[in-house]
């Protein structure tokens, strides 16, 4: 008898991109529903909600000695306490500071038991200012990280740029993150149903990719930059080979890997095997059965210092044919 978990939406984005405008749009359009809003700084724009909790951005390292294995201690405390209140929340929305690294926030939902028991992270929504993004992304590496972590990108203020610049911004975003859905907006005016209830971390919905996003248009960035690497194979995967490789890779390179998603055709199995990860935190489950037509395994990494050729040969070596 498990109560439905309260969905949590994480809104990130650089200062002035339109995060609070989006937040207020959600709160206004979803009137009648009850949200808890957690913010790290009170901006100039007020937040139109009964319950706004001020968080402290306390990033705690787990004591395994790894710099990427972090959680947000303040969120653990706030969410655990809010869930004891009598208020039945329809959702929670967390707005981060402009320069926040989304990783500790996201990992909190997969590491802390109390948080995991009561709420689930629905999606990371990153608001991008079309006008200033290209200049800012080279200055502030957090901005690239926020885009790389996103499930949904609100490409905002599109009225302030011409078609060429908009295309350049889109190309840059796609280079950083091939998995995210891009919604072009003016004044953060995205349809709410495209922002809420996405189930982006729900394993049963992992890799419901839109096919276009997986087209290989290989515009290599510098190796220190964040890129997306997507790998596919039609040959069934040998579970043990794959497991050994992915564990080793994530242990060794998890600091550089921001997000991972995979859907695998394991040899001898009728069902899809789906998994996802944030840095070194991995989560996996059996998914829906394959239909007879195609059984392609797909794997996407978003991160730094990723060598597509090397990753591809390692992945191909996990098939039964190898």
């Amino acid at each position: 008898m498990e109560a439905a978990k309260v969905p949590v939406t994480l809104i990130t984005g650089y200062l002035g991109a339109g995060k609070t405008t989006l937040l207020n749009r959600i709160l206004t359009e979803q009137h009648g529903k009850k949200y808890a809003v957690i913010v790290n700084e009170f901006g100039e724009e007020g937040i139109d909600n009964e319950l706004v909790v001020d968080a402290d951005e306390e990033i705690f390292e787990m004591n395994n000695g790894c710099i990427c294995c972090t959680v947000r201690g303040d969120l653990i405390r706030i969410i655990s306490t809010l869930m004891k209140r009598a208020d039945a929340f329809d959702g929670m929305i967390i707005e981060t500071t402009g320069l926040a690294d989304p990783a500790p926030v996201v990992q909190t939902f997969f590491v802390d038991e109390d948080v995991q028991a009561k709420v689930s992270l629905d999606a990371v929504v990153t608001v991008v200012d079309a006008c200033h993004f290209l200049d800012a992304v080279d200055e502030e590496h957090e901005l690239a990280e926020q885009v790389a972590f996103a499930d949904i990108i609100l490409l905002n203020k599109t009225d302030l740029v011409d078609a060429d610049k908009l295309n350049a911004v889109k190309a840059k975003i796609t280079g950083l993150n091939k998995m995210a859905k891009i919604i072009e907006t003016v004044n953060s005016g995205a349809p709410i149903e495209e922002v809420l209830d996405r189930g982006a971390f729900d394993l049963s919905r992992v890799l419901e990719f839109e096919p276009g996003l997986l087209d290989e248009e290989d515009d290599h960035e510098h190796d220190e930059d964040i890129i997306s690497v997507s790998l596919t194979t039609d040959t069934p995967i040998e579970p043990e080979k794959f497991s050994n490789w992915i564990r080793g890779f994530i242990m060794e390179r998890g600091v550089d890997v921001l997000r991972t998603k995979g859907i695998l055709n394991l040899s001898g199995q009728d069902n899809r095997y789906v998994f996802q990860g944030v840095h070194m935190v991995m989560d996996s489950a059996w998914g829906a059965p394959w239909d007879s037509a195609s059984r392609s395994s797909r794997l996407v990494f978003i991160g730094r210092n990723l060598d597509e050729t090397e990753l591809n040969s390692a992945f191909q070596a996990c098939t039964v044919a190898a």
Partner: protein
Amino acid sequence: MTADALINPQAGGVPGFNPDAGARLVSPAVGLSETPAVGAHPTFVVIEPGQARAVIGFGDKRLRGLSLALDGAQPQVVADVDATPIAGVADIGGKGVLIGTDGGTLLRLDGSDVTTLASTDGAWIGQIAVHTDKSGEAGLRAFAAGKSMTVLDGEGSVVLTSDDHPSTVAGLSFSPDGTKIAAAHYDGVTVYTLTDAKQKPVRLDWHGSHTAVAWSPNGKFIVTAMQDKEMHCWRWKDKTGMRMSGYPSKIRALTWTADGGYVAASGADTVTSWDCSGKGPSGKPPLEFGYVYNGIVMQVAAHPTDGVVAGGYSDGTVMIGTVEQETAMIARPSSGSAISGLAWTADGTTLVAADEQGAIAVMRMKEALVS
């Protein structure tokens, strides 16, 4: 130097207990009475002196009282408060209840009267502690909100205040003589001397997030629970640190047996107790009792006089066990709802537990727990 013993999930099980048989019988040594679920989440359980009443804080901003007379009484609303009561302990001398709220107020409940002793700019008061001196009448109160911690005397004057902590203060514990207070936070514990304002605070360092702290009743040890599914213990005399690890779950509660011989913790599928006689828990595995299939211990409460600890589990089970003999009995069967508060009366004859649905179990001991 660590006490890195891995916990054996099978150890300390109830003799003859078969988890698959559904045979979850309450021990005949316990008289159990239970009230229906209130439907709100309890945040603490405190028992008032004279053991007449348990006071339970709830997530619906209400304080409810329950008579312990076992006369079929139901919980009654004692007071409505204007914010969620998130922390509660017995006040000085056991008279009244000290309460911290998520509205940033420090409240005192006396009978059904609520007075405000202190307030913040809105920062949640999530941690409170009370020390009663030998007279039984006077003492100290401490509360923490965000990074700041304040100690007040019985009249409400500030004895000490500090915000020199690397994170929000997640636990407070007075030394048994009331001359010091330990504040737990990220990367360790800060210990303040209350009797000498000029004395520099002592920082006990250990990397990671410390989420609870408890000073041993004999004053020799300070133990913390950590986000990292382990505990840390410092010997106060020489500040030597010891690590107690191997837990499958994070540790939400700590309790010291009355003589200070053992510290018991939640976080495993048994109640685990570490031997802190002599130099501390190094090199020794914990004693265990009360294995519950598919359950994790959420709350622990040491008996006020005997070497007995009560454990409240994630499935609503309550077990009472003897630490050294590693034997256990069921005091309340599973309700399916995790135990969120657990407290003994001062004479140790009655145990009160509250589960997340707001059901309150009163367990009366029919015979002595340790012969």
